[in-house]
């Protein structure tokens, strides 16, 4: 099973969309809230070089934003 992490904020509509999409496809993921949580934020910046959300990490590969085609390709769904 793929290791999936979603870096998100509670207020971002695209983050909600990514999470509900993964749930819909029964993909287990770890949600990392980066809002005001400096550890989570620094981790996101380190792995992705990004300061925008959502960032999805699948088996170490970084996908920026809600890019359904890339997520599907990476997960093979």
């Amino acid at each position, binding site marked *: 099973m793929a290791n999936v992490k979603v870096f998100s*904020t*509670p*207020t*971002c*509509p*695209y*983050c*909600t*969309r990514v999470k509900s999409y993964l749930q819909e496809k029964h993909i287990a993921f770890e949600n990392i809230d*980066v*809002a*005001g949580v*400096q550890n989570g*934020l620094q981790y996101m*910046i380190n792995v992705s*070089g*990004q*300061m*925008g*959300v959502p960032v999805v990490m699948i088996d170490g590969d970084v996908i*920026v*934003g*809600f890019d*359904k085609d890339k997520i599907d390709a990476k997960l093979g769904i």
Partner: protein
Amino acid sequence: MVDLIIVGAGPAGITAGVYAARKKIDFLMISEDIGGQTGLSADVENYTGYQFITGTELVAKFEEHLKQFNVKLKVDETVKRIGKASSTFGTHFIVETAKEPYEAKSVIIASGRRPRWLNVKGDEGFRNKGVSYCATCDGPVFSNKVVAVIGGGNAALDAVLQMMKIASKVYLININPALAGDPIMRDKVESSNKVEVINNAVTKEILGAQLVTAIKLEQAGVARELALQGVFVEIGSVPNSSIIDFVKKNNSNEIIVDNLNRTSEPGIFAAGDVTDIPEKQIIVAAGEGAKAVLGAFRYLAGLR
């Protein structure tokens, strides 16, 4: 071929979907997202029936309402182009996405608007690396950091009001001599000790290495550099109207509609912020979506 395709699922598209379902029209909805700009709004305080609701919650209500009906909805598909074809049965339309072409006897374009890009050096390169076009989305990432909001209208004021609660300092960089926007929001922004309003200032460049570190301005001919980590751009929007080239548009590229939401092409209707209706409001867009379906319903009846 379906009778109607609705392009977009913001307030105009979703309301059109609800009306079309209730009219039992054979229709399809195609949209790259649900909610459009409404989903990116922070607080909505002028949608009748809700004294206060967030954009995200209002979109959830819209979606719930739409999904009450068995609607054929293609989400996450972006319409690339709308074309026209003729056959012995008359004119019909082809709505193309990256996946496939869809055919319909009529189309409602409710594709909304997207942000106007700042287009200075560093804007594109630093997007998601400090430059953001959505304070609602990315704002919380800039907790206790220094940020700038670029703009001077309601959207910029809304972004400043959000960032005042999160950032350690907020510069508001306004190209005009004074702020526009609602007085009630202006007062809140101007009375905050966290906010510094810089009027008459042109943004020249966004600087940084891996992430944004500074912004270069020019104020009355004098160059100025501000050290910061985040730049939120709110300088207006442009209509998503380039998907069609055979309807009349105004100088701002908005699709021209009459009071029945008809465009210059029979069978093509438009509603919401993509049109030349001057009031860009959620409730106005919703009403326009309803009108467009009733217009399309009449048009389809005429074809039979």
